Structures are given as structure tokens and as C-alpha cells.
């Protein structure tokens, strides 16, 4: 089904274009502007070329070292949570009831963490994981394990990962649930007649149907985990030391804390480019999967 070509459709898109451009292009121009200039204060700027970028991308400088450390931590974080959330989400979606009152109950409870403001997510876990007043911290400490997320790097990481799993696994589960519901019953009946095992049903019927929603899920989870700011900011403040400082926290420190505009702007641009490239790859794959399905 080919869509007709009609350039007047631009008029329908124009309002969106204007409002997003106002929000995106003007600020981006500012960022680009800052990234190639230096200042002595008093609003006097002079040309600095690619100075900030070379400093940023050279790991031997202060700024570069800091940048690559944060970047590494961010990739590690995204990798770990994807590795946990995707299988767990699929598992939960398979375990959900297909009909009856249980469906609505499950959906509502599972969607609840998604609607909690991000700083409150932080607050919840900040309280819940504390050794003195939080249930989790108290129990883990009572079991004789040394767990303290404000002092110990490993504890801090575990806290943040468990928090993110709590916060976002439901997204994957809900996506997969929607995908599973779209599989016609006839498929399962055919599988039963063939005497297919549970695993075979999953491999050959369910997983192919889930591929599309999983791509959306992975895309959303990747970009949101890669720009995570609020939750770790509230729970650990990026510490202990810098051990849970991701790029976003680092960038805000640099831009709004130290007002180091040139360096912050250069970092913004590189940060943005990394996300865009990764998402572009996901997006292209997604569009191709779409095309494959239609043909």
C-alpha cells in the first residue's frame, strides 16, 4: 500500500516543526557556539576552534580522563540493565494471565513504578536501601553482609541497578505482553497438534513475534539508561567518589555547577552524537524489520 505523494502535508507538520525547532535548534546552536569559543568572563568570547574537543577526546588530560571514565561507566550500566531487564521482562510477560480480573491488576501494579517521578524513585530507594531505616538495607545487613551504598562502591552499583530494574523492567514486560497478545490462538493450537515443547513454542512462535516490540523496548531502554540522571543523583549523588557518576551527572556538574561552558558544550555534542549514532543503528534495523514483515 503506497502512500500518495503530497507536499502540502508539510502544512500539517509545520506547527510541530516550529515548536520543536524552537526548542532544539536554537539551544543546539548555543551549544555549538560555546563549544568553539573560550572566555575570560564578562561575556567576552574568542575563537578556540576545536581546542575543547581535542582536550575532551584525549584521555591523558583531566577532562578527557573524566569523560572516558563516565562514558565507560554509562556503557557498563546500560549493558548490565539491558542484560537483566530484557530476559526478566520476557519472563514476566509470559507468566502474566491472559484474561480475567488478574490482567488489569497486573497491568496497573506493573505500570505503577513507571509513573513515579524519577526523583521519587530515587527517594524510595534511598530510604528502602538504607541500613538504619530501610527494609532492604536492614535485612541485608542482618544477614551479615556488609552493605552500605553511601560508602561502598559495589553496594552503590547494586542499589542503582536493582532500582533501575524495579523502575523499568515493567516497560519491557508490558511491551512483550502486547506483542504476545497479538499472536492468534491458531498458532498455539497448531503447535499443540505437532506436540511442540514449551521451549519450541517460545523459540518458533513467540520470539519472532516479539522481535519488533523488543526492538522498541531495547531502543527506549538504551537511550533512557544512557541519559539517566535523576535517580542516581538522588540516591548516591554520583558517589562514593565518582563511582556512579554517569555522563549526565558529570555534564550537569560541569555546565551548571562550574559554569565551564566551553568544555561542557564540547562534551554535550560528543555525548549527543554517541546517542544519536547508536539510536540510528537501532532505528535502521527497526525500519528494515518492518519492511521485511510487510513484503
Amino acid at each position, binding site marked *: 500500500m503506497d*502512500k*500518495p*505523494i*503530497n*507536499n502540502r*502535508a*508539510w502544512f*500539517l*507538520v509545520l*506547527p*510541530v*516543526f516550529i*515548536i520543536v525547532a524552537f*526548542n532544539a535548534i536554537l*539551544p543546539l546552536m*548555543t*551549544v555549538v557556539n560555546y563549544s568553539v569559543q573560550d572566555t575570560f568572563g564578562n561575556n567576552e568570547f574568542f575563537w578556540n576552534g576545536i581546542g575543547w574537543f581535542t582536550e575532551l577526546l584525549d584521555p591523558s588530560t583531566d577532562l578527557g580522563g573524566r569523560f572516558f571514565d563516565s562514558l565507560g561507566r554509562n556503557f557498563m550500566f546500560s549493558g548490565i540493565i539491558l542484560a537483566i531487564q530484557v530476559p526478566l521482562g520476557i519472563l*514476566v510477560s509470559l*507468566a502474566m494471565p491472559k484474561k480475567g480480573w488478574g490482567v488489569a491488576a*497486573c*497491568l*496497573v*501494579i*506493573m*505500570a*505503577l513504578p*513507571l*509513573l*513515579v*517521578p*524519577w*526523583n*521519587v524513585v530515587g*527517594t524510595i530507594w534511598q*530510604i*528502602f536501601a538504607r541500613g538504619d*531505616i*530501610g527494609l*532492604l538495607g536492614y535485612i541485608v545487613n542482618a544477614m551479615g553482609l556488609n552493605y552500605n551504598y553511601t560508602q561502598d562502591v559495589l553496594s552503590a552499583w547494586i542499589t542503582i541497578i536493582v532500582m533501575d530494574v*524495579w523502575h523499568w523492567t515493567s516497560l519491557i*514486560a*508490558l*511491551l512483550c505482553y*502486547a506483542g504476545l*497478545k497479538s499472536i492468534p490462538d491458531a498458532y498455539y493450537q497448531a503447535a499443540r497438534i505437532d506436540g511442540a515443547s514449551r521451549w519450541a513454542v517460545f523459540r518458533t512462535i513467540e520470539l519472532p513475534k516479539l522481535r*519488533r*516490540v523488543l526492538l*522498541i523496548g531495547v531502543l527506549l531502554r538504551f537511550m533512557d539508561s*544512557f541519559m539517566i*540522571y*535523576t535517580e542516581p543523583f*538522588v540516591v548516591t549523588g554520583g558517589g562514593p567518589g565518582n563511582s556512579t557518576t554517569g555522563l*549526565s551527572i558529570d*555534564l550537569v556538574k560541569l*555546565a*551548571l555547577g562550574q559554569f565551564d561552558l566551553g568544555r561542557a558544550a564540547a562534551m554535550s555534542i560528543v*555525548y*549527543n552524537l554517541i*546517542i544519536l549514532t547508536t*539510536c540510528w543503528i537501532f532505528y535502521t534495523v527497526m525500519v528494515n524489520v518492518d519492511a521485511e514483515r510487510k513484503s
Partner: protein
Amino acid sequence: MRTKHFILAFYLLFMLIPIYWLVNMSFKTNAEITQQLTLWPENFTLANYTVIFTDPAWYMGYVHSIQYVAMNTVLSVAFALPAAYAFSRYRFLGDKHLFFWLLTNRMAPPAVFALPFFNLYSAVGLFDTPLAIALAHCIFNIPLAVWILEGFMSGVPREIDETAYIDGYSFPRFFVKIFMPLIAPGIGVAAFFCFMFSWVELLLGRTLTNNMPISSIMTRTASAAGMDWGLLAAAGVLTIIPGALVIWFVRNYIAKGFALGRV
């Protein structure tokens, strides 16, 4: 079968226990919180909630938050509707690039925009108004709304449009009278997502105002010397309630919505 129930029950408990702990704490006195660990409030108190509902510094935070979230939801959906229609029905010059460009704005980290937004909205005189946050949140909500609505609209056969035009409907009348009722669930889901992402966002809201959103008021309190845990918990509980209400209304479409209408 048994493992299935076990997994589900375990997962739902995992979802609920941290929230229960927050609710539990909001009904305790600070003395009880810090001195012993109790599984339910032994000295049940509503004092924490009273503080929030009587102190304008607190309850105005909720009012401001609801203001900008409502403005943003209306703006995003109203702007996204015609655009999504264009994307789902026509091909036009640069459509694919435009669509991807819109999505890139959903992908851009708010941290990147914090400082330039501060400059921009100060320059146009909107700093410290709910409208500034509502407009700023459009940067990620409009692309999302377009994406979701486009998915739902593509599910409506194009014959319906053509029949309506043959019957003599003008485009605006057709759109409002026939097309919008057809994609009502999609509009609901898009509004839900705009609400959700505007409601949960902190960084831009905090940067563009002097402590207007409730989320930013909470962070300020949290960092003040001598934590008032009970008050913090009560404020947290109150921020969860609107979300829970909204989920209840869209519960039947929520799964499809998370798949962006593309199942």
C-alpha cells in the same frame, strides 16, 4: 504452571514492597522512623500530610506541577495530531528525515539542553513560569506523541478518508468528526505518555524555575541538614497518586500504548 505463578507473584511483590515502605514511612513520626524498624506504623500519624497541605511552599509545588503537565499534554497532543496524520497518510519532501529528526529530540539527553534552555527561556522572558517547563517538555513529548499517534492512525484504513471526502466532508470536519473518534484510544494513550514523561521529569523543571515543580522542592528538602524522612515520604506518596489514577483510566490500552501502537 506453578513456576509461572511464583515468578509473577514474586515480581509483583518486588514492585510493591518499596512503595509500601514509602507509604508506611509517611504515616510514622520521625522518632519512630529513626529509632526502630517497624513493619507498620505503630504511632499512626497524619502530621506529615498536614504539613504539606497547610504550607503553601509545599502544596503550591503540586499546583505548579499539575499546571505545566496539563499545559504540556494539551500542547503536545494538539500539535502532534495533524503531524501524525500527515506522516501516516502522505509522502512528502523530506518526510523520513523529518521523522527521524523528531525522534532524535526524544533521544537527546536533557542534561545537554539544561543550560541552553536556561539561556533561551530567560531571553524570551519565560523563566520561572509553568509555561516555560510546558514548552521545554514538548521537545521530548511531541516526538513521542507523533510516534504513537502515527502508529494508531496507520491502523485505520485509508478507504475511510476517501469515502468521507467523496461524501463531501471538508478536511477539518472529517478529522474532528470521523477520524478522531476512530483513534480515540490512541489519543488517550498519547496523552497518557505525555502526562507521564512530563510528570516524572526533574532536571529541566528544576533548571527553568526557582523550585516550582514539586519534585524539585523535594530534592531541596532532602539535601537540607537533618532529614525529615516522614515528610519526604509523604510528599513522595502524594506524587504517586496522580500517576496511579491515570493508569487506572488507560489500563486497557496501556500494553498497546507502550508498544507505541505498533503491535
